[in-house]
Every structure is written in structure tokens, then in C-alpha cells.
């Protein structure tokens, strides 16, 4: 028995010694953050996302494998604004990594570098559903915020890894340049949708609407995070007909029955938009994400 334990301990230590050496080990809570971090960090920075792009980062589950990743990280990048409140605090506690605790240089909350929309004025009650008092956390869906996030990431990379600072700034400049050009392209492509009234499934597209100038007039969910009732759906049918709303946008992970019902009743067109890098196949970079969103919107919307 004692021999057995000794061997097991030895095995642990040996395996632990063969870890790969990167300039920075970065853990992000979502694939969008990982994509931007990879664009800034290049090959020398090891970036891994805790949640896949196909899932709602709000409802991730703290799995043991995540503890492993966070425990070895030099930097943790998160969405913030309570997006990860349900699973990140216990994860941080279990990971026992002093470098990435809140307040340390290895903890980067990007909700602090973007202007948050949808902040709640007045008291917030759970009777209002899943509202975020600090503001809507889906801010990565505005490419202008992408530039802000990239800049904050580049600054933090430079602080944690001073020898790489110049490289990070160079990559940041290239990223910003691409985004600037692309933004014009996307806005031109989506000029038809400008000013249009749109219905969303969840309150997750307000930043996208802000970036491309359309307005979200209502949601399929009666309150954030509350499943649509028959009464709410029939009310939506009336609204879609009377206001002649022609487009419904939703994430791939939401149920399609409600949208299909609204389509059958009113003929409203449905655009299933990737909300994150990795939410649909072949979306690997932050630019890919908007390329796809714009492609889907220009095919479906803009009538």
C-alpha cells in the first residue's frame, strides 16, 4: 500500500514537470475573449477558453477540468458584469491561484473598459427576471467594443510579459486596422437593415443593434431568462402584425418552437445568429464572427 502511494506521488510529480512553457498562460471565460487574446498574443501566448462558443456563458458549470486550467494560468480574462457570477467565484476559490484573484494583475475584467448599455436605473428585483444591474454583459457583439477589449488585453499582456510588449502592440495595431476596415464593410453591407425594427429572443443583441443601427423592439422571452408563455407569444403576434416587424434574431442554443410559431403566424423571418466565436462551425476569429453575422443578416434581413 505504502509502495503504491509512493509510486502514485512520483507519477504526479513527473507528469507535472513536463508542462509546456509559454510566455503567458491565459485562460478566458469565453471563446470571444480567447479569439481576441490569440490575435494579440500570437504563438508565444497559450490561450484557452473555459466555455465553448456553443453554450451560454451564463449557465456554464464549474467542472474539475476548469479548476486545472485556472490553477495554472498567469492571466484570467472575463466578461464581467455578473456574466460568470454563477460559476466563476467557486472556481477561483478551488483553483487556489494567487495570480488570478480579483484585484491582481492576472485578473482582467473587460466589462470595465467598455461602455455598458442597459444599466438598471432604480431598484432591481428578481421579479423582473434575469436582469443585470451592472448593465447588459453581451458587449462583445459590438465590433467597436472588440477594439477596446483588444487594447486592454494588449496593455495587460505587456505588463505581465514586458519583453513581448512591442510585439503585442504591433499585433494590436494590425487587429485595430483590420477591424476598422471591416467595420466600414459590415456597416455598408447592413445599410439596408439600418433603422429597422427587430425582435430578439433574449436581451443579448442590444450591442449589435447599436453598432449597426437597427432597433430591438421586443423579446420572445417576456422577461430575461423567463420562458415565453402562450399569452406573451400571442401578444407578439399582434405586435409583429401591427408594427410590420420583419425579422427575429436569436442564438443557436435557444429552442426554435417559439420562433417557428411566430413565423407560422406572421411570416416573420428568422435569423439564427452566432453569438460567439465557435457558436457555429468555421467561426474561429473575432472577425469571422461578424463576417458570419453580417452574411446571415444581409441574406435574411434588409427587406
Amino acid at each position, binding site marked *: 500500500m505504502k509502495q503504491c502511494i509512493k509510486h502514485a506521488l512520483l507519477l504526479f510529480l513527473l507528469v507535472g514537470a513536463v508542462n509546456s512553457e509559454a510566455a503567458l498562460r491565459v485562460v478566458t471565460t469565453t471563446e470571444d475573449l480567447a479569439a481576441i487574446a490569440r490575435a494579440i498574443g500570437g504563438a508565444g501566448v497559450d490561450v484557452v477558453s473555459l466555455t465553448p462558443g456553443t453554450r451560454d456563458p451564463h449557465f456554464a458549470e464549474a467542472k474539475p477540468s476548469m479548476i*486545472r486550467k485556472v490553477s495554472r494560468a498567469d492571466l484570467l480574462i472575463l466578461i464581467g458584469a455578473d456574466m460568470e457570477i454563477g460559476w466563476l467565484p467557486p472556481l477561483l476559490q478551488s483553483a487556489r491561484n494567487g495570480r488570478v484573484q480579483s484585484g491582481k494583475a492576472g485578473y482582467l*475584467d473587460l466589462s470595465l473598459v467598455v461602455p455598458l448599455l442597459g444599466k438598471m436605473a432604480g431598484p432591481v428585483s428578481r421579479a423582473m427576471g434575469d436582469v443585470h444591474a451592472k448593465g447588459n454583459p453581451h458587449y462583445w457583439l459590438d465590433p*467597436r467594443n472588440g477594439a477596446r477589449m483588444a487594447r486592454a488585453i494588449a496593455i495587460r499582456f505587456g505588463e505581465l510579459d514586458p519583453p513581448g510588449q512591442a510585439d503585442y502592440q504591433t499585433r494590436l495595431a494590425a487587429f485595430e486596422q483590420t477591424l*476598422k476596415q471591416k467595420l466600414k464593410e459590415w456597416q455598408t453591407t447592413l445599410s439596408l437593415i439600418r433603422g429597422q425594427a427587430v425582435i430578439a429572443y433574449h436581451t443579448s443583441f442590444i450591442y449589435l443593434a447599436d453598432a449597426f443601427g437597427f432597433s430591438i423592439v421586443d423579446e420572445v422571452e417576456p422577461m430575461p431568462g423567463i420562458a415565453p408563455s402562450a399569452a406573451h407569444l400571442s401578444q407578439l403576434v399582434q405586435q409583429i402584425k401591427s408594427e410590420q416587424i420583419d425579422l427575429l434574431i436569436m442564438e443557436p442554443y435557444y429552442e426554435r418552437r417559439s420562433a417557428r410559431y411566430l413565423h407560422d403566424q406572421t411570416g416573420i423571418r428568422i435569423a439564427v445568429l452566432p453569438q460567439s466565436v465557435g457558436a457555429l462551425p468555421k467561426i474561429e476569429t473575432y472577425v469571422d464572427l461578424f463576417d458570419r453575422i453580417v452574411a446571415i443578416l444581409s441574406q435574411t434581413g434588409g427587406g
Partner: protein
Amino acid sequence: MFNHLHRITSMGILMGACAIFSLPGLAAEDSSLLRQQLIELQQQMQQSQQAYQSRLQALEQRLKQLELEKITLANPAIVRDQTSPSDLPSSQGSPLRIGLSGLFAAGGSTADNDELEDLQGGGHDPNRNGFTVQNVELSLGATVDPYFDAQANIIFLVDREGETEVELEEAFMTTRHLPWGLQVKGGQYFTEFGRQNPQHPHTWAFADQPVVLSRFFGGDGLRSQGARVSWLAPTPWYSELYLGAQNANGETVTSFLAEGAGGDPTDPENIGGHVLIDRDGRDQSDLLYSARWLNGFDLSDTLSMNVGFSGLIGPNTSGRSTETTIVGTDVYLKWQPAYVQRGFPFVSWHTEVLQRHYEAGDSADPTQETLKDWGLFSQVLWGLRPGWVAGLRAEFAEADGGVSTDDDPFRDRRKRLSPNLTWYPSEYSKLRLQYNRDWAEHLDGGNADSLFLQMEFSLGSHAAHTF
């Protein structure tokens, strides 16, 4: 721009002059000429005004565009220093997390209330025909300082006599970041044995606790005062080793230095009918030692698995030098497809097998023997659609040795099958319907059918997003 202004002013002067000169008594041809000139002037003015306005608009547009580009792409306007202390609490919620959860049940069974109390051995199980306040739990938690986190859970119960009981379920502190992957926890806490034991009643997937846990760990689960060290091993997969020592006496450490009630076999703290002696912990060898090795793997993007091995060794009250050992294995598998809405759908499978060796009586005791008990439970949960979970649990427990196991509700052969259906209107409330089919040797008819309706609310930050 000044050119435009100049033109407008001069036109104004001209128009004023026209008004002065267009006096009655002027020649008709002069008047018509003037009128024509006036019309021309008006048209000119309108044109230049339009041109002026459109240029102004274009300029404004350009200015906006420039500002936008400046802010967004070259120079983020509001990059704040994230390390400033004022920002610290903003992403982790309020500094003190306060939560209150209430768990209630209504039940009906073919067994009477006395039988039901034995069948539902858990202290938080619905255990009577009628209503049960299963658990009202006040929890407080926060980061103490840069070195510690702390948490306390205080339980309120209403017993069968209608009296309110208060229990300090847990109160412990945990280190935040010791080197080498170590963590120390100290205070009053649930022993990390298996997956189910450290879980609080409001996170259970079923209305009651598994039979084998009620038998080995008593109604409240295994918890005591002590300290433990855990080590996060530097392996490529998640692997954590826990070693702990806790006081072995008290009613929450059944199987060890619990005080029984004479030789009454129906007392759950009295094991195998053996007379318990007054034995208190004297030195460190009379502590309860625990070990757990937990591993976690992602088998694929959609399937994850945890495997744990746990062991306990400590003194028991059937003799001066008698010991109890308990070992257990737990397996947890969870499948979730690539696309999930609010954590649904999912399928999870959780199984634990436990075995206890209870040395009953010292070597001088003529009835000296080793009582062997074992049991298992296996439960499958299916989150079929957002907010809806169907579950099925199967259990088995038996023992050998002792006076007779047939009449002992805590050592007889028992089987239980429990299907249930839970609806979560939101993450903060739930309604659960559970049916229990019991087969137990100690029951007169050999079996019993029970139905429980359970409801729960959760206030504050405690139980946010538990699924």
C-alpha cells in the same frame, strides 16, 4: 462658412433696401422690375440656405465619424485601471453574500408516521403524512481578507413537536492561495466523503437522502469540527487529494463516537444492538481521519466524468479500543450536447458504493464481532427541456452480523426505487414530485409506497445558478 454668413447678411440689407424703395407712386415698370429682382433674390437665398445646411450636415457627420474612430480604434475612451481597489467588488457581487433557502414538503404514505420516520432516516427528509419543513438554511459567505474565504450555514428546522431547532450546520474558513496547490480548511464542516455527503439539502436531486448515507452518517450527514488539507496535483487531468482530521464525537458522526440510547436497536445511533459505552476522545488517535482522492476528466466536448475514492477511520463507542472504517467510491458522469439552453438538456449519472466495518465490543467482550454493512445508490437525471428534470434513483443496502438485522430498520435488507420530476420555474425556485417504493425487511407488510411534493425557494445570492 464665413462666406455664407456674409452673403446672407448682405442679402438681408438688400431686402431691407427693397422694402424702403417699393413706395407707392413709383413707375409701374420700375415696380415690376423690382419685383422680379426680389423673386430672384429670394430664390438665390433659398438655394444658398439649402447648400449651407447640407454642407453643415456633412460636416457634422464627418465630425461624428472622426470622434467615433478616434474613441473606438485608436484610443479607448474609458480604459480604467482594473487594479484600483474601488473596482474590486464590482465583478464578484456584494462583499457579503447572504442567502436564505427554504425547503418544504407535503407527503402521504402507506406507512404510518412512526414507520415513515425509520424509512426516511435523513434529518431533512420528508418523514410524515402531512407537511414537513425540511430545511430552512441561512448562509453567509465572503472573502475575509487577502488570505481567507469564510462561510457559515445556519439551519432552522421545525421538529415533530412543532419546536423550532437551530443548528450550526457549517462554519469554516478556507485559505485562498497557498503555494504548491495546497488549500487548508478549518472549522465545522461536512466531511468531503463521496459526492453526496457534502451537498446541502437544497442542492439534492431527490427529496430525501440515500438510505446508505442515513445508515452510516446519520440524519444530518457526516460533519464535525476539524481541519483538512487538500492538494491539487500537477497532473494533466484534474486530481485532488484531501486529508483531514475531525472530532469523532457527537450526533453528526454516527458510526464513530456517537452516544446511543442503551441497547435499543431502533435507535439509529446504536449499531447492531451493541451496548454503547461512555467513551470520549482522549488523544489524537481518537480523532476521525478522512481521505479522499477525486479525479475529473473531460471524455469529450460533451461528456465529463468524476471518479472519487474516500476512506474514514476513527474510534467507535462499542468498546474502549474499537474502531470503525468506512470506504466508498463515487462516479459521476454528465453529458450535455454542444448547444444547451440555460443548461438544458443534459443527462447525468451518479453512483456511490459504501462499505462499513464496525468493530463491536472489545476483545474481552463475549459478544465481540465485526459488523459489516454495505450499500449503494445509483441515480440518473435527465434534463429534458429548460426547467424540467426527470430522475430515477435505485438503492440497496444490507448488513451481516449483529443480533438480528431483520428487525433493525438501520441494518436490515432494504431496496428503494424513487422516480421523480422536478420543475424549476427559475433557478431560484423548484417544485418536485417524488414517488418512493420501499422494500424493507423490518416493515410488517415488507413494502411501502410514499408520495412527496416538495417545494423550494431561494433568496439572495446563495444558490444562484446551481444547475
